[in-house]
């Protein structure tokens, strides 16, 4: 299974995301933001970073990178896409996911091992977990506050589209402790914490994050 990992100017977690894909048993394919070609990959990861310096809003300029045209088109047809941190912001700016990410309510950059509850195991990226499972993965963000209007939040909750929720304290003021969400079809997932930094205990707090990558590989294998 070939999982594309996009490098934007400022991406800093692309190598870790590619490594997570390999540890989970997939083939990581490097994609460049300036190319409008998905190289025939089976899924895409938009990694964390500070794409384009986030000058306007986080992810706002990255959203119009050449690679995003085919990604948006393919995502709307069911291609599994995972956006982590800045990748989550790019997915919101692309309107593949509702809502937006704003500056943390305490205005401080937060970096810590974060406890999370996986709320949904029915997405392409979380099927290796069980709903209600608690995991610990690193979190690091300055603009990680998830916001949306009340109607959108109610719809997300009602449709089971809140994928992961913060436990043990909300690190950034995200509405309803939301750490990650999915689109209606369940193929596009965005989350603020970094599962790619928790894929082996040698250099992560846990290997709890591996499930995101194992999930999509399992989903793709089942579809073949």
């Amino acid at each position, binding site marked *: 299974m070939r999982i594309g990992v996009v490098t934007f100017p400022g991406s800093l977690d692309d190598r870790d995301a590619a490594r997570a894909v390999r540890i989970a048993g997939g083939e990581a394919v490097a994609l460049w933001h300036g190319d409008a070609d998905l190289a025939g990959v089976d899924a895409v990861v938009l990694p964390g970073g500070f794409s384009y310096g986030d000058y*306007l*809003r986080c992810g*706002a*300029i990255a959203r*119009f990178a050449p690679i995003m045209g085919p990604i948006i088109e393919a995502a709307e047809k069911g291609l599994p896409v995972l956006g982590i941190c800045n990748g989550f912001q790019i997915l*919101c*700016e692309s309107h593949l996911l*509702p*809502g*937006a990410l*704003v*500056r*943390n*309510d*305490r*205005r401080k950059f937060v970096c810590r091992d974060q406890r999370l509850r996986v709320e949904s195991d029915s997405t392409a990226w979380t099927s290796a977990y069980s709903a209600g499972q608690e995991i610990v993965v690193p979190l690091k963000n300055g603009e990680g*506050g998830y*916001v*949306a*209007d*009340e109607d959108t939040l109610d719809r997300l909750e009602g449709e089971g589209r809140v994928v992961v929720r913060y436990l043990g304290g909300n690190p950034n*003021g995200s509405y309803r402790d939301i750490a990650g969400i999915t689109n209606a079809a369940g193929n596009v997932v965005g989350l603020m914490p970094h599962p790619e930094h928790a894929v082996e205990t040698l250099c992560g707090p846990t290997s709890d994050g591996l499930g995101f990558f194992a999930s999509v590989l399992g989903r793709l294998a089942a579809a073949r």
Partner: protein
Amino acid sequence: MARVVVDVMPKRAILDPQGRAVAGALERLGFGGVADVRQGKRFELEIDGELTEERLAELRRAAETLLANTVIEDFTVRVEHVTTQA
């Protein structure tokens, strides 16, 4: 030449941590009586050639597409000044 100004402000319902920080600082500095602060962005677009209604409509689309995220922000577009070229 014309200058078109796009003001982008966070929506009332959305948390504005930056505005809140500024409000707190004003209070601490003794500038009382400020109930709330919201911090927005101002874009000044210098426009070549004649500013027609069509061009203005296009700039509104630009504001909606890129300059503002209408999920969390409101925006206004206005023409600040027009100078006729000699």
